[in-house]
């Protein structure tokens, strides 16, 4: 009798133990793989969110699940539920990507729902993940370093290689237009050298007389031909000057202007 009682007790406990493993509470996690925390965007960017999910135990048919994304904007917006696109991955559809209208720190939240595919979410989200991103003012910024100097030159001579200025876009969006222009060399007390005596190229060591390789500077803006000039992009611009024969001696100066835009 006592043995039978022990067997029953052991059976009950063993069943409970096995049951606790086999019929454990289902595991549900959702992850945001893009964007990542700390990533920066501008108010011109269309932000896409994507990630994955793990579904273990219970109903593991991924087609029964979906993810809703909340963008952390003000007023906040939530995309419609995105059914899992494949085996436990998801991405916001292009029409549901988000363009932020204001700058600042934003928290993107992804919530995994079981009944999402039906269009209603009567039960709480089964898993949640958030990432923090930064929305910046879109800026394009141009620097040109250093100033140029050809040094003393004699009439009829041409300057050598290696005289350049480096352009750099230190902003966070592309520069879409980038032009170069100049004015005549002006001598203190009168006298000029035509603006076109200065030529430029994007590669060092070009022949001054090669009209294709080296372009004469003009008073009207001419595209440098390097747009879009991406953020963090660098470009050296090399210059050569030929002083005309019989040019009167004196101190000459010239102004060169780089004009940029990001409309």
């Amino acid at each position: 009798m006592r043995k039978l009682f022990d067997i029953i007790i052991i059976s009950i406990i063993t069943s409970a133990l096995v049951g606790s493993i086999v019929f454990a509470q289902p595991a549900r996690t959702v992850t945001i793989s893009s964007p990542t925390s700390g990533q920066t965007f501008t108010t011109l960017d269309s932000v896409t969110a994507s990630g994955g999910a793990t579904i273990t135990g219970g109903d593991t048919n991924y087609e029964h699940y979906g993810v809703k994304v909340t963008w952390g904007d003000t007023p906040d917006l939530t995309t419609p539920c995105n059914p899992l696109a494949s085996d436990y991955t998801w991405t916001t559809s292009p029409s549901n990507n988000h363009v932020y209208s204001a700058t600042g720190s934003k928290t993107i939240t992804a919530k995994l729902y079981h009944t999402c595919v039906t269009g209603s979410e009567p039960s709480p989200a089964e898993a949640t993940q958030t990432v923090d991103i930064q929305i910046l003012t879109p800026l394009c910024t141009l620097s040109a370093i250093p100033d140029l100097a050809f040094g003393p030159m004699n009439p009829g001579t041409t300057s050598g290689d290696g005289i350049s200025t480096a352009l750099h876009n230190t902003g966070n969006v592309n520069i879409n237009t980038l032009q170069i222009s100049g004015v005549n060399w002006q001598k203190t007390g009168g006298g000029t050298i035509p603006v076109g005596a200065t030529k430029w190229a994007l590669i060092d060591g070009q022949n001054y007389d090669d009209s294709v390789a080296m372009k004469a500077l003009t008073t009207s803006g001419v595209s440098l031909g390097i747009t879009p000039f991406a953020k963090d992009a660098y470009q050296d611009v090399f210059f050569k000057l030929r002083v005309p024969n019989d040019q009167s001696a004196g101190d000459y100066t010239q102004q060169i202007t780089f004009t940029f835009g990001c409309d």
Partner: protein
Amino acid sequence: MKIKKLFATTTIAFLLCVSSVFALGMTAGPVMIVTDVGSTNSSYFGLINNGNETITVKIRAEGDAAQFLEIPATLELVPKKLTNVDVKATIPSAYDGSLGGNITGFIYAVQEGAPGQVQINIQAQKTVQILIPKYGGKLPEPKTPTQTPVQTTTGENRITGFTSLVSNPLLPFSIGAVVLVFFVFVISRRFDISIKPKEVKK
């Protein structure tokens, strides 16, 4: 290629150290001002001086829209601070629509370089559109930007979702605890049984 880029970066960094930084920036996108005949409206765009000294930029307008615009002639820019350029557009009552309802122009902001044999100037160009509803001018429909988002830093995602027993890393310990409780229970039962005095039938 990497060496070339590294060299360029190092060169720029060196030049930034030995000379004053010289960089002018502006906010992206055109300025669009909707105003009707006989009215005035305004907008703005931002300029930023990424140098290390306060500068004064000269501002001017060109193109068809210039005659209708009012802008500051100069603007002082302190380092690293976005400063707005106010742009006011006035369409006089006498405007006959000869330029249409969408009048385009440009605003230029010039940062002049240091005087020398060759002075390098940086000039920001901002497109301005004056839209006059009476002559068909209207704001464009919103469009989805095509610019690819850029990543500058990366970091760990913060997971706040719950984790169940199955995926819990403490699962082995949980099972171990259950097994331990089970054996303690059995042993204690056997112990209880072993010390239980036999009942004496009277």
